[in-house]
């Protein structure tokens, strides 16, 4: 007979989860604290959320974060998908291995190095840092994630479908749009979601590549926390957690649809 999990198993899983999520639970809970002190509970209130709406700097930061996320995720999705197509469909063109390596390297490259090198590039180009340098930087590093996700789907994709389309008189570019894209769409959407989420919570690359007037939410939070934690920060973090959780959930849902999609 199979025994259920022992008390030791339950305890270790419980401890592990507590270690991971207790801080987050505390943070969320204290965002609803009525008092000004972050560590003393003095009743339930949503006043910090109200304060947040009044806080113009936070609102600006949120708006910038959202715009950077939307634009960079969309650009990264287009470029990353094209890179994946090149990798999978390009056959054995010269330098394919190098190209693949260059696509994957940013996945393991320390963010600090990435941010620093982008900063040096923008400086060398004499490019004033701001919204667009930030968007370009986010596009660069999220592109790799999109490429990996889309490539995994393309490898499974039945090549004879594309051949059948061309056989039926469909030129190659139209084949990509009408046959390939609809069949890899779940992976492309998942890639976009992933890129958006990554852009949303990035602090390191943003610190290097952003400039005055383009402060993102994570940057704003970080700079305020250095002056001391206020429940207002808790509130904004709660909202951010909600947004990321939503993104991850959607990504998972789309991923599920992907595995169910007929081959």
């Amino acid at each position, binding site marked *: 007979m199979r025994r259920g999990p022992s008390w030791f198993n339950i305890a270790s899983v419980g401890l592990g989860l507590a270690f991971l999520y207790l801080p987050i639970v505390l943070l969320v809970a204290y965002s609803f604290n009525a008092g000004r002190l972050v560590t003393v509970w003095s009743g339930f209130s949503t006043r910090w959320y109200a304060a947040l709406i009044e806080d113009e700097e936070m609102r600006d930061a949120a708006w910038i974060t959202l715009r950077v996320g939307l634009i960079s995720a969309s650009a990264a999705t287009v470029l990353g998908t094209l890179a994946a197509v090149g990798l999978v469909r390009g056959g054995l063109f010269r330098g394919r291995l190098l190209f693949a390596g260059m696509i994957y390297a940013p996945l393991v490259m320390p963010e600090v190095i990435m941010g620093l090198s982008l900063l040096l590039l923008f400086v060398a180009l004499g490019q004033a840092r701001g919204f667009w340098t930030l968007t370009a930087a986010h596009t660069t590093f999220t592109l790799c994630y999109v490429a990996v996700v889309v490539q995994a789907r393309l490898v499974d994709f039945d090549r*004879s*479908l594309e*051949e059948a389309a061309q*056989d*039926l*008189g*469909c030129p*190659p570019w139209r084949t990509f749009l009408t*046959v390939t894209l609809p069949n890899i769409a779940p992976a492309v959407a998942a890639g976009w979601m992933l890129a958006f989420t990554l852009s949303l919570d990035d602090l390191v690359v943003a610190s290097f590549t952003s400039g005055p007037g383009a402060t993102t939410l994570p940057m704003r939070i970080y700079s305020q926390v250095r002056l001391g934690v206020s429940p207002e920060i808790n509130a904004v973090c709660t909202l951010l957690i909600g947004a990321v959780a939503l993104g991850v959930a959607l990504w998972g849902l789309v991923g599920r649809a992907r595995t169910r999609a*007929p081959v």
Partner: protein
Amino acid sequence: MARRLNIGAVRSSFAPWADPAAVPLARFEGVTKRFGDAVAVAGVSLDIYEREFFALLGPSGCGKTTLMRLLAGFETPDAGRVLLGGQDLAGVPPHRRPVNMMFQSYALFPHLNVFDNVAFGLRQDAMPKAEIRARVEEMLEMVQMASLARRRPDQLSGGQRQRVALARAIARRPRMLLLDEPMAALDKKLREETQFELKELQARLGLTFLIVTHDQEEAMTVADRIAVMRDGAIEQVATPAEIYEAPASRYVADFLGDVNLFEARVDRVEPGAAQVRLASAECPAGFTALDDDAPAPATQVWLAVRPEKMTIALEPPPPGTPNVLEGQVWDIGYTGDWTTYLVDLAEDRTIRVARANASRLVDRPIGREDKVWVSFAPDAGVVLTR
């Protein structure tokens, strides 16, 4: 005056390949295709005529699919030319070639329903919507899939998918339809039905079909002519009856049906009677065979005799009967319409003799271990030089 022999039990009035003035629809000229070091197609020359049902037959991996893909434009030849209607196809991309292919995997678009799959090719040309609808409905009617037009491919059975793939491939009325193992995924009964349907369809539409198969029975059933392939090269191109009754080589004789091969040497040629005498260690009296194109005396040859063209008896035949072999029955296979006897002629030498079960009652049935005499008429054997 040498005697000409008629081959096979089928007479057909359709034989454009025999007409020297006929222009082929598709032509392969010394086509070679390599994949790395491996040669998939080795110097193939082939003519396929308008309205012909042509089969490429050979074992798996002999280059059939590659030859077909060269015509569809998915592979480019390393040497030689592929022509369609007299035009060299080099540099013409697949989507501009007036041929359509039915893929072995069917390759139905999973994101489109049956109707849209069939309409896909028609929508590529600027065809009016109403006309597309009419054509798709006609095609689905023809393959008896009209009631399932709104289904997705993954909601169809294997046989239904096959029909949709066929309808999609002929919807554009291609000059030539290429079918890659179209029936490989069907069960035996459905396959036989489909073979006749396909033949009927081809005759009705007046299209040219090129079918790839490794099933010799399928090729014999549907095709006007068969090309037997071996290691990327063509062994023989002929009608099914010629391929079976007058194979060009031991390989072809063995690939299509069963055959007994006797090693022999040409002894004497009688051109007037189109007859040849062969000396062989297997038959001390020597073999007699009809042949209107016999090789010179002393040439090493093989005499190929089909099992059903031999007779088996428990008594020796009258003296003077040509081609008599003595042996002992080793095993018997009974399949209802035929009985196959495995007869040992000597140590490690077994031949097959088949008898049609033409009557229900037999006076003296043959059993295992029985001593038997096997004989065959002079016109039963084929003299092969390779």
